[in-house]
């Protein structure tokens, strides 16, 4: 039996963590992730979980403690945002390279300066080359379910990589929605018990974690990481299938919304996908062939799924909530545009950078993007490759 409870995105994340009941959580609070750590710390204080909670003095220490705990064989979680993620940067890479299945909810927030606590994706997009897998959540329900799924993904024997589960700061993290929560036992049955093959504390089978690698084997270890990410494209669908069997919800790497016969499409991550769906419905009511593609995963990059979804579309606008300052568009755009080159007949593409520092993205703005796409389809030409949506 499941029940629907009114929860903020952060509380939904904390509920998932309570049910997962990791062996170790080492975390430092930072807006807008604070309510995750706060709520979970309360669960620990109330004795509702047996988790060893380490209240560290910084995010660098948080991720360091997580690396140690995971190497020892503990199921390990943390959570962060923006500058916190930036501070743990060094260890973020070490966690992935050491192949430790840590799961970390990240509440997306702009990086300073100037100081900003509101949503954009500059924090996790910066970490796209760190070797972590990345899931982007549209709403509170996805936050809850993706965190549960992330445990299985991270710990899968063919993957063994840490996973970030991203939600939009304030927009999702502090918005209250009805979240369908499963029973504790159901969740525990789904995730099972975590057993590492190589515990740092196993004195009968001693191992060394994190040795000197240099020119000898470092390249080979990076090659293994690439393979693990590639493997995840095969292994994750098994976990989707099991999740559906267990809880009834079907997941995929991407969500295609009214794309089948679409002439024009927007690609957007996280909560903006929800806003875009409302615009698509509106345009469809007017007989316009509009659709949406919402990638749920950015790592692994679900290339085949994206190509398959976009192959029949005439014009695509890819929305980026972060800027990479290449003047060639944001990260989502450059990767999808590069992937589309493999299609013999590909849609015309353009990029919209939007919502930086929590700047509101509304249906009117998204409508204006579809209007531009309509022109692109008619003219068979992209007017402007990189556009800034909602900037003054």
């Amino acid at each position, binding site marked *: 039996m499941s029940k629907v409870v009114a929860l903020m995105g952060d509380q939904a994340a904390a509920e998932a963590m309570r049910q997962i009941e990791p062996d170790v959580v080492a975390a430092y609070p930072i807006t807008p992730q604070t309510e995750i750590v706060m709520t979970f710390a309360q669960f620990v204080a109330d004795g509702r979980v047996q988790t060893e909670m380490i209240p560290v003095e910084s995010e660098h220490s948080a991720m360091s403690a997580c690396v140690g705990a995971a190497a020892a064989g503990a199921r390990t979680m943390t959570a962060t945002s923006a500058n916190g993620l930036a501070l743990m940067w060094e260890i973020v890479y070490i966690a992935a*390279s*050491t*192949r*430790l299945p840590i799961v970390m909810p990240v509440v997306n927030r702009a990086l300073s300066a100037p100081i900003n606590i509101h949503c954009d994706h500059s924090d996790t997009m910066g970490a796209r080359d760190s070797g972590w897998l990345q899931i982007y959540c549209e709403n509170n329900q996805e936050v809850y379910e993706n965190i549960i799924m992330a445990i299985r993904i991270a710990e899968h024997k063919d993957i063994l990589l840490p996973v970030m589960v991203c939600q939009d700061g304030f927009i999702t993290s502090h918005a209250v929605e009805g979240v369908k929560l499963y029973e504790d036992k159901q969740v525990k049955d789904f995730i099972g018990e975590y057993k590492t093959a*190589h515990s740092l504390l196993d004195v009968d089978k*001693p191992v060394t974690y994190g*040795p000197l690698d240099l020119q000898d084997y470092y390249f*080979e*270890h990076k*090659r293994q990481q690439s393979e693990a990410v590639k493997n995840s494209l095969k292994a994750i669908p098994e976990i989707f299938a099991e999740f559906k069997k267990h809880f009834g919800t079907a997941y995929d790497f991407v969500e295609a919304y009214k794309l089948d016969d679409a002439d024009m499409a927007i690609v957007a991550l996280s909560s903006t996908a929800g806003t875009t769906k409302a615009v698509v419905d509106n345009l469809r009511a007017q007989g316009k062939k509009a659709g949406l593609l919402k990638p749920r995963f950015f790592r692994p990059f679900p290339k085949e799924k994206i190509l398959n979804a976009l192959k029949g579309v005439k014009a695509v606008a890819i929305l980026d909530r972060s800027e990479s300052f290449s003047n060639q568009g944001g990260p989502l755009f450059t990767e999808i545009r590069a992937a589309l080159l493999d299609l013999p007949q590909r849609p015309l593409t353009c990029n919209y950078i939007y919502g930086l520092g929590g700047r509101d993205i509304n249906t009117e703005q998204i409508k204006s993007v579809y209007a531009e796409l309509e022109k692109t389809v008619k003219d068979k030409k992209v007017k402007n490759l990189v556009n800034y949506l909602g900037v003054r």
Partner: protein
Amino acid sequence: MKKGWKDIPIGGLIEQAGSAAEYKSGEWRTFRPVRDEKKCINCLICWLYCPDSSIKVKDKKMVGFDLEHCKGCGICASVCPVKCIKMEKEQQK
């Protein structure tokens, strides 16, 4: 031929204990310790201080240096109470 990426443990994991001995760090050395046996009083203070366990001891007596692992840091020469160890530049040998 060294092993390829398919044949080594993931994540840089080393599955054998004590494998550091196989890593010949002595190649890094610029200065090598040379002992005057006549002056040595076998107090073994060098053995106590050597950070690389490179002082060889047999029957409670200092018998030489493990030059495959000694990096030439000179701590032994520095702590020796009778100054019987000198650091000599490698190419002079």
